[in-house]
């Protein structure tokens, strides 16, 4: 399974946004929103926080933030961009909170994680990704696994395209060096 999910061609985002803005249809429209984006957002978050339980927590927080912030969504950005942004921030906040309360490295325990089913190479790759600083990790994951274009990433993360490209190339060099060190 790749990290890229395709929106069904029938879905009209304009109509969904309209229904979300209208308080009479908001509840049903939000349920549609959750159904449509839950998997994509889950995997984006999971790659950041690694643990399933943490990803589940952050995903719920993401949708709660989206629900309480619906009136701030002006509709000029795509729903996916808006949701990605919230998810990204929630994952980063989660990582920051964890760092304050524990010294446990994300890389420790991945091999023993019952919800990790990769071979040796995948294990090393995700261990390497876990050593990246959180923002750089986000950029790497979105580019490498979701194949997100820099322009959309810029809109999602609020960072310039130039800075994102630099961040990605830096991440690639670090991961390459990580593999060279273990060879």
């Amino acid at each position, binding site marked *: 399974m790749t990290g890229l999910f395709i929106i069904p061609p029938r879905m009209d985002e304009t109509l969904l946004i309209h229904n979300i803005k209208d308080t009479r249809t908001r509840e049903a429209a939000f*349920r549609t929103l959750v159904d449509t984006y839950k998997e994509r957002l889950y995997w984006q978050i999971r790659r950041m926080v690694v643990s399933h339980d943490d990803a589940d927590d952050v995903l719920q927080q993401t949708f709660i933030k989206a629900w309480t912030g619906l009136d701030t969504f002006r509709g000029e950005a795509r729903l996916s961009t808006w949701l990605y942004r919230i998810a990204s921030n929630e994952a980063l906040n989660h990582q920051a909170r964890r760092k304050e309360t524990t010294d446990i490295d994300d890389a420790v325990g991945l091999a023993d994680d019952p919800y990790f*089913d*990769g071979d040796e190479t995948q294990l090393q790759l995700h261990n390497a990704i876990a050593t990246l600083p959180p923002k750089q990790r986000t950029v790497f994951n979105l580019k490498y696994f979701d194949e997100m274009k820099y322009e959309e990433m810029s809109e999602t993360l609020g960072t310039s395209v130039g800075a994102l490209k630099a961040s990605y190339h830096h991440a690639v060099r670090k991961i390459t060096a990580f*593999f060279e060190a273990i060879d």
Partner: protein
Amino acid sequence: MKTTLPKDNPFRVPDGYFDSLTDRIMASLPREEKKPARRLWRWAAAACLAGAIAIGGYYSLRQTTDAPQTASVEQTESDYMDEALDYALVDNQEIAAYLTSNE
């Protein structure tokens, strides 16, 4: 690096995770409770007023009659009080629940 390192997903989720996820998320969303509580407060106020008027009316009526204090009159009093309370749109339990939920 893209040709030598895997892009496929090594992470797994518990069985049925995504199936039940939407319901769980919808259930966890904060809901505003303002409107029903406001209505309850208005009913409580109206009920007190109706009850007070009914009781007041009953006592002023009693004072204008010469009915003897017999058991049957006491029974009638009790029935009248019940009837006055029935005019309340909200019962005491609901008022108590509203007051304790807003602590």
